[in-house]
């Protein structure tokens, strides 16, 4: 079953306990930077006043990064987390280019660079635990569980306090669904990294698959077409020549240079 995290923006108090827990759990270096980076897997962003929201990998159901990676170094696991396999990666950075949430970061100053992003603490989940961040959150603003259960819980909250919440669960449909689900008391249009994909309902990998899936036909028909044209044109030429010289050419030679026999005799 696929796990997920429910983020309730109205409950986040901006204490950054999750960031601290993440740093410890993943052995990230302390940094003063306030943006996603190889040493920041998750950021608690301050939107306005006392509104804070979590900014990290969404662990998409049809992850764009996974579909983009040429060597399958990124993997959408059965359990939900999207993880990266160092030994496969060739560093093309198509995952950074393709991610609709601009999540993966790169070690630009490392001669053996890694793609770095939140892993939803995959190892801890495999071991039966939960991510360090959800464990650390003192208010329940981030909740770990089965994605299905979390959707039900979100629906319950929206139903019980209709005046408080925007009536939308972000992540059920967006970019084909994400393991991270957001509910909020401020409009999603205001939250930059979410707003950009509010209108994107279809999984983005579809856009490239539509073209990629045509390749076998293109090669098949293209090959037949090209050989066909070649055959027809050359047959005509052959016939013309046969008529002219009234003799059979044993073999056609389509190289413009002289054959080696003649080359030699010329010297």
């Amino acid at each position: 079953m696929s796990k997920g995290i429910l983020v309730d923006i109205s409950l986040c108090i901006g204490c950054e306990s999750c960031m601290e827990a993440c740093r410890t759990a993943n052995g990230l270096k302390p940094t003063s930077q306030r943006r996603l980076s190889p040493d920041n897997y998750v950021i608690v962003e301050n939107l306005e006043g006392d509104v804070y929201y979590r900014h990290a990998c969404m662990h998409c159901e049809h992850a764009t990064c996974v579909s983009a990676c040429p060597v399958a170094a990124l993997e959408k696991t059965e359990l939900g987390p999207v993880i990266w396999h160092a030994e496969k990666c060739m560093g093309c950075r198509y995952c950074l280019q393709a991610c609709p949430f601009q999540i993966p970061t790169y070690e630009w100053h490392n001669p053996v660079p890694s793609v770095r992003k939140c892993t939803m603490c995959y190892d801890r989940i495999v071991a039966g635990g939960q991510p360090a961040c959800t464990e650390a959150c003192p208010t329940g603003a981030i909740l770990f569980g089965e994605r299905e259960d979390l959707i039900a819980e979100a629906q319950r909250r929206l139903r019980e306090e209709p005046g408080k919440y925007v009536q939308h669960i972000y992540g059920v449909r967006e970019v084909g669904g994400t393991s991270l689900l957001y509910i909020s008391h401020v409009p999603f249009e205001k939250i930059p990294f979410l707003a950009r994909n509010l209108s994107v309902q279809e999984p983005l990998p579809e856009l490239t698959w539509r073209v990629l899936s045509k390749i076998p036909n293109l090669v098949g028909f293209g090959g037949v077409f090209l050989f066909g044209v070649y055959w027809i044109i050359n047959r005509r030429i052959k016939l013309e020549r046969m008529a002219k010289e009234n003799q059979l050419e044993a073999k056609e030679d389509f190289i413009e240079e002289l054959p080696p026999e003649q080359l030699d005799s010329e010297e």
Partner: protein
Amino acid sequence: MKLNALGSRLPRLTFWRGLLFALWILGAYVAVIRFTKGLGAVTNLRDDFPWGLWIGFDVLCGVALAAGGFTVAALVYIFDAGKKYHAIVRPTILTAFLGYLLVIVALLFDLGRPWNIWHPIIMWNPHSVMFEVGWCVMLYTAVLALEFSPVVFEKFRWRWPLRVMRSLTIVLVVAGVLLSTLHQSSLGSLYLIVPQKMHPLWYSPLLPLLFFISAVGVGLAMTIFESFLSHRAFRKELELDVLTGLARGVILVEVIYLTVRFLDMAGRGTLSFAFHPTREAGLFWAEIFLMSVVPIVIYSVPKFVVHRTWLFWGAVSTVVGLVMNRLNVSITSLEGWGGAYFPKWQEIVVTAALVATGFAVFEWVARNFPIFPREETAEEAALAGEKPAYA
């Protein structure tokens, strides 16, 4: 010392030669920094702008400018365009082959873990456009090497490999055309997955088709352009009727391109963006004019399409326009999302060094191998040419 020894065959230390060596030294310096300190030390790449000049120019433009190889091969061997075109086959195949080799070198610079460049062979993800791109680069480079091999066999008079290659010609040409079609279009497909990141003037579901058509157009233009360079460098006779034929081809292809591009934009309602007074709109029109409109206009004038000066400038315009198009797709259109990007000087140096290397290797091969038709072999051209190459 070494230069003097070669002096009888190669031009002396000309300006271009000096520039080449300077670029090589700078390039080597940048390479050392890049492979010890990481990409960030020599590029302006960052998380929200992961592809820069090396992908935008070296790879996207490099592959497109190599399109003459499959275009001319198809014209000559499949569509049997006529005997006169045979003379340009080998130079265009050589250009394409060198182009692809340089693309691979550029990739070795650009990939974060270049020692894993072969991974797509055994680690498959058919859902990735980049996977397709990787396979196309590998296979088409191999096809180009085989297409070029008769030149080497001929030089050393290896008869039976030559005979084998000849019997394979048509198979190789068809494979090359198919692989090129896939590769040229797949470079456009790469951007299909980021509809919300790109400027509407450049994002289109038809990007693969547009990349393919414009590659065919610039393939023809590059062949014209390169005939002029060979003419200057090797005092090679200009086959004006051949170039005129190619120029007429450019008209046809660019008209198709403009039709598809504008119908697509009109159909999706993005045309209005071209009339806003923005930097993007300016670059869009510059690209459209240089790549398509200018050559169509020039080559449509009967007097110009047979005139060497106009033939040359029409081709230059197409090439410059194509370069703008690829840079617009890969850089300009994404700046609205990722912020402004301009390459560091180190990125420019590596690119310039690769281009210069391409010219230099072409010159060396052309002087030492039977690239041009028999009446002007390399030796004869060298004997006749006291004039330094490309000067």
